[in-house]
């Protein structure tokens, strides 16, 4: 599957590049606003300042990096995400509705193998939506995860999620067991 280059912003952020990034983000956010409000022109009284402020904050907090993604990996991830979300919802429902809440929670530490950037953001963002895991801390090399059931195969599930996120961005992960 060929990987597409989506954001071609250069690393050495010259002022023109920064401006381009700001305008690009503002256009995308304006389209989102348009999607919400449709043809209601007066909504832009709120929308325009909101879009400009969001674009400015976004460009400051997250300077552009080069990133690629693979459409096949993204589709597979979407299907996996929907399935796991349903399992996660069902898991919570089952535990909540059982006569005694069926829990043996705890905190675990999971070493990160994905590179910093969009891949790691996607990983940390989805861990909390999948069955039995919620991110409660992010360090440069590991995340802290609260699990509902310590006996579950959480570690294997997180590895699986990592592999699938890596496939979305066309990343090759370092070998298993690299970090202690």
């Amino acid at each position, binding site marked *: 599957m060929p990987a597409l280059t989506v954001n071609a912003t250069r690393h050495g952020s010259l002022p023109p590049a920064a401006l381009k990034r700001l305008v690009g983000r503002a256009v995308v956010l304006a389209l989102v606003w348009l999607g919400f409000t449709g043809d209601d022109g007066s909504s832009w009284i709120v929308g325009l300042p909101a879009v400009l402020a969001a674009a400015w904050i976004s460009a400051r907090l997250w300077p552009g990096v080069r990133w690629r993604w693979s459409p096949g990996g993204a589709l597979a991830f979407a299907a996996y995400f929907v399935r796991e*979300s349903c399992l996660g919802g069902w898991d919570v429902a089952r535990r909540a509705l059982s006569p005694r809440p069926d829990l043996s929670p705890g905190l675990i530490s999971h070493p990160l193998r994905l590179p910093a950037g969009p891949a790691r953001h996607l990983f940390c963002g989805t861990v909390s939506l999948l069955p039995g895991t919620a991110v409660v801390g992010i360090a440069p090399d590991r995340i802290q995860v609260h699990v509902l059931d310590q006996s579950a195969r959480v570690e294997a599930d997180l590895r699986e999620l990592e592999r699938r996120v890596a496939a979305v961005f066309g990343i090759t992960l370092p070998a298993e067991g690299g970090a202690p």
Partner: protein
Amino acid sequence: MSFLDFLSALLLVPALFFFVAGTVALLRFPDLYSRLHALTKADNVGLGFAVLALMLRAENGVEVFKLALIWGLVLAASSTVCFLIGQEAVRRGLKPWTRQSP
């Protein structure tokens, strides 16, 4: 009642179930951390089914797009807020509830 309306009503049943189950979990789970699971998982799936049901009743493609956008934004916000609350709890030294006796 058209077939689509019927299908839409049918999808609202699991939506309702997951919202109720999520609320029960919120009330019954023992500590802050496990309650975060109730909010991020059951409610998201409930909203997913509700959004699907409403998409079937949408007047046009723009409404379908709008509903999908709402779902995506709620997922992102839910996951982010879950992390921020959990992180602050860890920072304040809140110990997670553990099962004492079997």
